[in-house]
């Protein structure tokens, strides 16, 4: 997938009135972070603010604060960071009913990735399903449609939804 996929995804988010992005990088999400870090990018000029976070649970906390104030917010993270987020998801988002969108790189989704991704990679979908978090796999041929589908699932369930990314964007 080439750089424009990142632009397309972020345009879909700004069209959906997302105003805050935060998170912790993954090499699979490199293109998205490049756009977010560039003050002149289309997404930033369209009003998407970006705050780098030290850890994924803090990113989720910040995004949740913005969502409480009525804004749409997105957190970008590697699936390893989902572990750090579990307490915030379960003791904040799911009980305060504050949804934010999660763009999650799915490391270890097959057997070709580094060993540290094996366990969480194999168990990512059951983990999301355990907490009834809706998810959507990014379709490399239709990145905008995948974003819209993930946001629709988040809105419908009124729960954090995960857009899962298995190839570099």
């Amino acid at each position: 997938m080439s750089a424009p996929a990142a632009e397309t995804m972020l345009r879909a988010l700004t069209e959906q009135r997302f105003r805050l992005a935060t998170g912790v990088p993954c090499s699979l999400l490199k293109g998205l972070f490049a756009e977010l870090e560039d003050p002149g990018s289309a997404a930033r000029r369209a009003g998407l603010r970006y705050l780098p976070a030290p850890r994924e649970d803090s990113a989720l906390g910040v995004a949740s604060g913005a969502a409480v104030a009525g804004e749409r917010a997105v957190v970008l993270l590697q699936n390893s960071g989902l572990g750090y987020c579990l307490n915030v998801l379960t003791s904040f988002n799911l009980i305060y009913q504050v949804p934010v969108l999660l763009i999650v790189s799915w490391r270890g989704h097959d057997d070709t990735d580094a060993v540290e991704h094996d366990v969480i990679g194999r168990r990512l979908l059951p983990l999301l399903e355990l907490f009834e978090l809706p998810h959507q796999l990014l379709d490399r041929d239709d990145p905008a449609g995948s974003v819209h589908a993930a946001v629709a699932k988040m809105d419908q369930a009124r729960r954090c939804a995960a857009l899962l990314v298995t190839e570099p964007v």
Partner: protein
Amino acid sequence: MLTLTSVVHELLDRHPDACLVASCGYPSRELFGAGDRPANFYLVGSMGMAGPVALGLATVRPDRLLVALDGDGSLLMNLGVLPMIAASGARLLHLVIDNGMHESTGGQQTVQRTDFTALALAAGYRSAARISRPGQLTALDTEHTPLLVQAVTGARAGIGPRVGPSPAQLVARLRDELSRPPAPAR
């Protein structure tokens, strides 16, 4: 000597228009008991998240003073929030109740007595102050934000009431409060 109760009362008197995010346990219960209002947002869980949640609110309403009512234990759990708040330049008062213990769970000691003002300044907060006597919070210059105030307190006498409104109700009323345009300057 300061107590959680005295600091919260001084805070509410000093910043009646601020939006307050209280850490779980005693800080939330204290604030609820001291004077419940829509601009009070109580965390019932998610220890360590008062700073991040307050920061998220501050990015949406930069015109409004946001206060994160934290504890020494909950801030020690998530010191990483300090550079994030500093980098944002948010209009945020980070008020740390430092009683040297996890009082909400029975008074167990926290890791160590910590100079949170030094940590905040090293992280890039624009100002920081340590207070230990009544009146000092009232007299404090809170213009240069983000600002961290370390309030060294003793133990609390007794325990505050449990937060009444449901989490979803807390969200709804705060969102309603924040959807109003900024109050005119007085």
